[in-house]
């Protein structure tokens, strides 16, 4: 176990910010802490690093209890949002500073510097000062600084937020290949769920100091355990249809106005009662227009009217309406769709989620 956190609580004075955090990450995992501003993800990262003391709980890095240790003794490295490169030092010294602090010899520092700078392709930048570097270069240097010490854990606090969209995509793929090459354990904080999904082996979705769900990107996308997670992940957002569950013969039926769905394959946590109010969640790409699917079981389809079409390059985001039911679906932009058109939509019953409207829990 590379990282294990048990029952971690943290308060600033009287205000609790982290409540009962439990995490276990194996060697080589890329764990992403995902959440909106203020959910506590940065604070959690600071606690793992040792920059913030915790109020109670335990933190284990490589099986060693470190919650009483200062960062210097935890063998972790961290990349900050604004990179925090030392402005008065050259890139070379920026990178080797950590080794300098731990008393490595000049030779050791030199070797480590060569190794890291060639890996990140920054050999030409070694004599420059941080202010002479571009955003992407600075990020590489910051990563280099953390690589050079062979830490047990790599921590990253929203390092991509200051890059423009194109650079961000570039750095994402570089980071993925770096992770694959090194096999290091990384804990990455972000508020951007696309970034989280593209980088992570597992994602921890956080809200108000708690972890709502930890799982692989696939699990989080297709089987969210709560309304919060379902709504947080996915662009465009998940469709939510309020309705009721009825027991008919041996199966459960979801009903809203004209929409009646027989839920045969859905795994309920417990058998629902007749008349339970519920929210049906379905992702836009799980709504299939009839034109691309031969008409079959009419029980799964609904005729809807197009209200709005948004072009996003490769996709069309199409908004549909049918008597109180609003849905958004995705289509290839080569399709000709206009507001006012009538389309028959098929609902993929293997891809739905049901939620309790008040609690937000998955049914």
């Amino acid at each position: 176990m590379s990282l294990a956190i048990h029952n971690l609580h943290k308060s600033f004075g009287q205000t609790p910010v982290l409540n009962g955090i439990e995490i276990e990450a194996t060697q080589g995992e890329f764990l992403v802490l995902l959440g909106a501003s203020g959910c506590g993800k940065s604070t959690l990262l600071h606690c793992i690093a040792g920059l913030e003391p915790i109020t109670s709980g335990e933190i284990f890095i490589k099986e060693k209890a470190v919650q009483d240790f200062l960062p210097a003794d935890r063998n972790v490295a961290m990349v900050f949002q604004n990179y925090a490169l030392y402005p008065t030092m050259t890139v070379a010294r920026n990178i080797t500073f950590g080794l300098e602090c731990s008393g490595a010899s000049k030779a050791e520092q030199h070797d480590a510097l060569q190794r890291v700078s060639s890996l990140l392709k920054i050999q030409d930048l070694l004599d420059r000062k941080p202010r002479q570097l571009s955003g992407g270069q600075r990020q590489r240097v910051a990563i280099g600084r953390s690589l050079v010490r062979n830490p047990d854990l790599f921590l990253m606090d929203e390092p991509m937020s200051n890059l423009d969209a194109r650079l961000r995509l570039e750095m994402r793929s570089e980071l993925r290949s770096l992770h694959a090459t090194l096999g290091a354990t990384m804990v990455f904080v972000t508020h951007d769920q696309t970034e989280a999904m593209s980088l992570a082996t597992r994602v921890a979705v956080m809200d108000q100091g708690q972890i709502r769900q930890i799982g692989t990107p696939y699990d989080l996308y297709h089987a969210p355990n709560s309304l919060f997670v379902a709504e947080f992940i996915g662009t465009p957002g998940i469709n939510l249809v309020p309705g009721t569950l009825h027991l008919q013969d041996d199966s459960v039926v979801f009903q809203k106005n004209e929409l009646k769905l027989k839920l045969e394959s859905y795994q309920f946590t417990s058998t629902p009662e007749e008349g339970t109010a519920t929210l049906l969640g379905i992702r836009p790409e799980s709504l299939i227009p009839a034109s691309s699917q031969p008409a079959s079981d009419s029980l799964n389809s609904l005729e809807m009217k197009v209200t709005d079409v948004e072009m996003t390059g490769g996709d069309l985001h199409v908004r549909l309406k049918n008597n109180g039911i609003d849905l958004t679906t995705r289509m290839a932009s080569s399709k000709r769709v206009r507001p006012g058109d009538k389309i028959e939509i098929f609902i993929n019953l293997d891809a739905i989620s049901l939620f309790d409207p008040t609690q937000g829990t998955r049914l």
Partner: protein
Amino acid sequence: MKGHFQQKLLIAAALTPTVLVAVYFIWGFGAATAYLSFTDSGFLPSKKLIGLFHYQKLFSSARWWNTYGNMFIYGGVYLLGCLSIGIVIAAMLDRLPKSAIIYRTIYLYPLALSLVITGLAWQWVLSPTTGLQHLIRELGFESFSFNILGSSEYAIYALGGAAIWHSTGLVIVLFLSGMKGIDVDLWRSAQIDRIPTWRVYASIVLPQLRSTLMTAIVLLAFNVVRSFDIVVALTKGGPGNASELPALYAYEFYFVRGKIGQGSAAAVVMVVSIMAIVLPYLIYELRKRKQ
């Protein structure tokens, strides 16, 4: 958790010497002087308490009342002069970015000079034998008379004038930087609404600079209480004791008259008076800010 606590301890320990020294040399000494004001100290400090004797003596002394009153006259002139001239100059310089540098140098340089130099310079200019009176007479106006330093009534204003000369630059710096912080869009919309420039300053800019005003007033007020050098250099408190200020009074009683107890009482009254004005003002302003 333990490591963090140890680190906090280390930092607190490293700061302790300074805290101790500050407490001893500032708060400790202040308290000691306050204590002395209640003792019968003469040339040397004594520990024997005699209650409010010195304060009674102080407030039944015509000389002290004159001196104490001078502090408020001088303070009033000083504050009014520095603020009004300083704010007007700052507003004008705000509109002229290019020539500002030359003017700024001219208005600011007196701040670099000590108050002794300030006093000596103005003594030269105001003295009847060397200064203005001499000059005007030389020009032919034989009967021109201007001996403010010899006037019991007006010498204190000479002090104010010299002090304004010294400190206006501070007000200019504070308000200029405050004015530069005003949103450019405010100016643009005022222009569209056809509001005259002076009106913009009076009704829009200045109200936003309340905190700058507060800072300026507090700094100037403390300068008033500390005014010792300039009095010694310009008037020596004269003629007689007409332009004396409490700082000078205290000093004289400490070291010339050998009445430490009395001097301490004067010092205490001096500091308490200013605190009594500044602190409530600060609290009022800070509370307003919180709203």
